[in-house]
């Protein structure tokens, strides 16, 4: 792999950038792999990378039915934070945040992790109680998260309207300074490049149509539109399509796939320095390096694989944004889009073994998948390599829906992921 650096770019600039090779190889699939990962998003590509890097398993294929990074990896609002409430959540999101902090250097690919701070607005006493619960839990767990007064919040994010007369006045905010954003495409491409360099096969336009098992029930491989591909172990990391794939192995899972929309404004000169989220009014917003306001909307209320949603969802988000930032009413929406998120009933992910030997599931990240990418990928690789979960992901099992040991961030916190 050619190392990327400012010197390499400068050298190439002098010769018309003719020397760059492909980010990743596009090989024909082998008949048999040690591990197949279904789903070429950040989680799947990352898991392949860590399998190769940390577990020495390089006979790995990532099968992607479309183009890599084209699912939720490329459709989210790129928010990164780890200030969750429960230990299970803090474990995995903080593990992830620590990986984010070094990811560009690790991958030799600039993923543009930008710790610009994630600020969650508190609008009432209930929010305040909940945020303080988070802040205290985070502090005792070694995760940064701090309470700001309205004036401190305004100082951190000048466009904020902190007038007491607002319909939802701001009585404070929780700020995680290490939180921020990253460049979504770069995550997929960076992992793909680094994994490919270590021998992982990245196979695009390869749709899995069946999961084959032997007489003991153990997986043997997958049927695809490019034929049968054998594997000793299969990891499913397909976000919105997890249920569909698990059905191929005759396993029903506690997941629902719903449309999640987002939008960007026209590009504007920098005015918005951080990420702001408000659960009470249902909005989150940041400004991209290109100057676009990146705004996340909510999920539609029904299951859908259509990657589209209703205008009323966008409206609901924008009226909240305009209420918080009245000067943005003249800003224009440039592009809106939708993804498919798979959500569990406790709004926490599933990562673990399944009833099918050799089949591993990484799913249910809902609206929190992007921020978890490196951590989830890293621990998923561990799970696949060792056949049992890493300590930091031990609570995320499928089993919890039977035992009732849920990790109910939404119920406990009323904070959007």
């Amino acid at each position, binding site marked *: 792999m050619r190392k*990327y650096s400012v010197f390499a770019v400068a050298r190439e600039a002098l010769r018309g950038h003719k020397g760059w090779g492909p980010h990743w190889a596009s090989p024909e699939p082998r008949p048999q792999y040690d591990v197949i990962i279904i789903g070429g998003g950040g989680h799947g590509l990352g898991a392949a990378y860590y399998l190769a890097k940390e577990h020495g398993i390089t006979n790995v294929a990532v099968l992607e039915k479309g183009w890599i990074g084209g699912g939720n990896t490329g459709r989210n609002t790129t928010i990164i934070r780890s200030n969750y409430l429960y230990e299970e959540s803090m474990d995995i999101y903080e593990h992830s945040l620590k990986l984010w902090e070094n990811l560009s250097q690790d991958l030799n690919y600039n993923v543009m992790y930008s*710790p610009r701070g994630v600020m969650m607005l508190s609008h009432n006493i209930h929010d305040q109680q909940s945020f303080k619960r988070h802040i205290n839990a985070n502090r*005792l767990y070694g995760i940064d998260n701090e309470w700001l007064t309205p004036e401190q919040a305004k100082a951190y994010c000048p466009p904020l309207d902190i007038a007491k007369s607002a319909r939802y006045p701001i009585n404070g905010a929780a700020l995680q300074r290490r939180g921020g954003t990253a460049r979504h495409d770069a995550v997929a491409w960076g992992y793909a490049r680094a994994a490919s360099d270590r021998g992982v096969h990245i196979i695009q336009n390869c749709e899995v149509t069946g999961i084959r098992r032997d007489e003991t029930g153990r997986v043997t491989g997958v049927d695809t539109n490019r034929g049968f591909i054998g594997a000793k172990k299969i990891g499913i990391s397909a976000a919105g399509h997890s249920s569909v794939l698990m059905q191929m192995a005759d396993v029903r899972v506690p997941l629902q796939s719903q449309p999640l929309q987002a939008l960007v404004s026209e590009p504007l000169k920098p005015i918005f320095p951080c990420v702001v989220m408000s659960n009470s009014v249902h909005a989150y917003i940041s400004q991209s390096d290109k100057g676009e306001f990146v705004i996340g909307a909510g999920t539609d209320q029904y299951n859908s694989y259509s990657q589209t949603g209703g205008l009323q969802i966008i409206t609901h988000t924008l009226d909240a944004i305009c209420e918080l930032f009245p000067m943005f009413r003249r800003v224009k929406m440039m592009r809106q889009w939708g993804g498919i998120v798979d959500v569990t009933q406790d709004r926490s992910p599933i990562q673990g073994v399944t009833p099918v030997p050799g089949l591993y599931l990484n799913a249910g990240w809902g609206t929190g998948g992007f921020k978890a990418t490196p951590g989830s990928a890293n621990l998923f690789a561990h799970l696949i390599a060792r056949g049992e979960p890493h300590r930091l992901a031990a609570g995320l099992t499928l089993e919890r829906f039977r035992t009732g040991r849920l990790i109910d961030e939404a119920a406990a916190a009323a904070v959007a992921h």
Partner: protein
Amino acid sequence: MSGVNRISGAGRLTPARTARFTFDGRTLTALEGDTVASALIANDIHLVGRSFKYHRPRGILSAGAEEPNALLDVSRDAARRQPNVRATVQEVFDGMNVSSQNRWPSLAFDVGGFNDLLSPFFAAGFYYKTFMWPKAAWHNLYEPFIRRAAGLGVAPTEPDPDHYASRYTHCDVLVVGAGVAGLAAALAAAKAGAKVIICDEQPEVGGALHYDSGTVVDGKPGYTWAQETGKALAGMDNVTVLTRTTAFGYYNHNFVGLVERVTDHLAAIDKTLPRERLWQVRAKKVILANGAIERHMVFANNDRPGIMLASAGRTYLNHFGVSVGKQVGIYAAHDSAYEAAFDLKKAGVAVAVIVDCRERPGEAVLAEARSLGIEVLTGHSVVNTTGKLRIASITVARNGGGGARKIAVDALLVSAGWTPSVHLFSQSRGKVKFDAATERFLPGTYAQDCLSIGACNGTDDLQATIDEALAAGELAARAAGAEGGGQVALTGQNAFEWTGGMIGAAEGAGPDTTVKAFIDFQHDVCAKDIRLAVREGMHSVEHIKRFTTNGMASDQGKLSNMHGLAIAAEALGKGIPEVGLTTFRQPYTPVTFGAIVNHSRGSLFDPARKTPMHAWEEAQGAEFEDVSNWKRAWFYPKAGENMHEAVARECKTVREVAGVFDASTLGKIEVVGPDAAKFLNLMYTNAWDNLKPGRCRYGIMLRDDGFVYDDGVVGRLAEDRFHVTTTTGGAPRVLHHMEDYLQTEFPHLKVWLTSTTEQWAVIAVQGPKAREIIAPLVEGIDLSNEALPHMSVAEGRICGVPTRLFRMSFTGELGFEVNVPADYGQAVWEAIWARAEPMGACAYGTETMHVLRAEKGYIIVGQDTDGTVTPHDAGLSWVVSKKKPDFVGIRGLKRPDLVKDGRKQLVGLRTKDPKVVLEEGAQIVADPNEPKPMTMLGHVTSSYWSPNCGRSIALALVAGGQARLGQTLYVPMADRTIAVEVSDMVFFDKEGGRLHG
């Protein structure tokens, strides 16, 4: 004079009607009806902006919504400033101020232009490969630099003073686009009797007829026919004609969003008018007549000001009477551009040359050019241009090399052919198909009830377009159920038949990697960038788009998509359909947030629910808190009191005398029917059939998973009638939850549910003197302990109006909750207050209510529980029936994790130092010296200073809490560690004697 380039006698504007505006501080004269673009060109200004990345000088490229370059800042006053306005769409009004963007210090001398020199370094995707060292530098150094350079306009900094309107509307047929096709279809649909809406983004109907001077429809010049038809349609009762109205989004089930620009073109604005109006149209049938967008030619340095689309040149001339230059060149791969030369020549403008990269243009246009004496170079290409801030010359060479010749021009009109506008069709999730013969994507499989006609459907011939439109209009009307008899026949003819078209890079635009042949002007994407992306392994069109950012600018690739695709296909050695088209997303052109949210702002953003006594509370100086949508009185500070003092006073007063509290927001549901008790048996954990009429009981409601969902007091008014109360925030979802079980699981039960939250104003009177306060006002109810004991309810009258009077208490004191019909709430409250105040009682708010109930260890669902708490965890096992065979949650409660030891249980906490008040949300540990990450046992759910106990009190969820009574635990805060003792939850009047007065 309205500009040096205005040609007397040309165009359709009235020379006498002028308007003045400023551009970068310079005052200019325009004509009414000008766009900013036409007015600038009339004043010989082509340079209007700088590009995004290289800061190259840019001019006006188009005359329509597809404009990628001419994005300007337009303002009426300081607060009414709009960045990124397309000069080609914005109409001039007298007094407007226009400024260029993304340049410093000036448009002509922009320091950012230095980037152009560094452009070899700034290749597509370069930022992924660098800026990684040292680690922190990305965020601290590189990113701020990149951010400052990026972005276009400057965001507004003042709240928007304008307002916006919204209309939901329905129609049989929605026609998008009012060119020939749209007008003909609308006419046919309207004559057939359908309810029709036709919209067009331009100020008047006509579409391409604005410039297409040779077109004849119904025996008249096309433009004239269009205006007459538009008027005729507007005059029909069943037709709505919306101009300046863009159909921006096609959503599910034929729901189409339109935005109408109402005042942005007016010099003086009527303040009652909305700035923009959002139309949310549900159409039975949609007819898409979006037309086609002309493509530019991709060649070296094709971005200089003065280079523009041929049809734009015709629009400026034929509609606005403005010549784009004095010595105009044409560079084309399509016949349509020839007509621009003809129009210019006929208007007396010098046409330097027509360069046609094809060997064989259409014979008719070639013959006409020759007969007009225009030089035509077929089989030639423009291989370079010169001119710093405006094009000065083109270099023309024979295809295949040789014979380069420099020709002086001050404008160059280009056309690579036409791209059908399939944006809305694609938004409707219809699938496009590639027509190899004409190299264009056309509507293929339809996903919704719509039909594309005319140019956006690939129909070129005018008569064919008209026939298709008329058939579609009538068919749509009939399918929507219209039964009118009118039929329409129309004829139409173009001046010339058009052939040709190309996509991708023209001769001389590569593969040389130093040539800047622009595809996407706004994002500075060149042909070489696409090739680089392919070399770097980006083989999907989506990857190429994202790697190069081609088509991701504010014009959303209207000009660039096809070119980018063709170049990528060539580089990949694949056919265009195999590479595929990127998805078109809403909106078609950018839409203001204001239009989308329209009325939803300020008091109309979200209903602020107020109780019948709100005005009184406000007059008393109460502070309010938000609880779900309600505004609740929080505390009532007296002069000079802070919150702590006010609450302390209220707390003492209630226990010593009495207090009056507005409890109206509590949810109320009337459960009526012979099976009412049976139903409540299923919905609550405890038993209801043994509750006697006139008595009340506290109930806990679970979800089927066993966790606490809501709670409240339920009164039985009669055998078949219960008055159920819920938490304030829980009211709507509890009713929904109960309806769900009633309708779908227990439909055999004869019982009905009605929300009565707002029927009743609820006045809680609590404290030793409560009975004395209300007694004289009450008729027909014996208030004695014997007749109306704790937890009972009676109906009678108070202050002459009906009441449901509850004897109950959330304070631990003797208490009543007076329910009266809401319109009487304030009057009854005032009557009670008139008795209470002289006795020394107070009005108290939610904060005091919280303290008083915590003193008694009463929980608040949602504060002391959080959706992960069972009734057993909350110390409410006594509310869970052990005898009932079924209730919602019965099985969930038995799951392994819900019955195991060590669950978090609700307990009391007493700080060792009684003066220290814990923070709500503080975490609890056993070992304060454990290093991080510490083992947290639980958290403080409620914590107050208790004036009545003279110490702090707290409730907490603690792992294995019941087994820890008496233990010392620790609350580590940032600045200190607080020792606490685990206790029971009742801090005041443990025996409960005060309840009985």
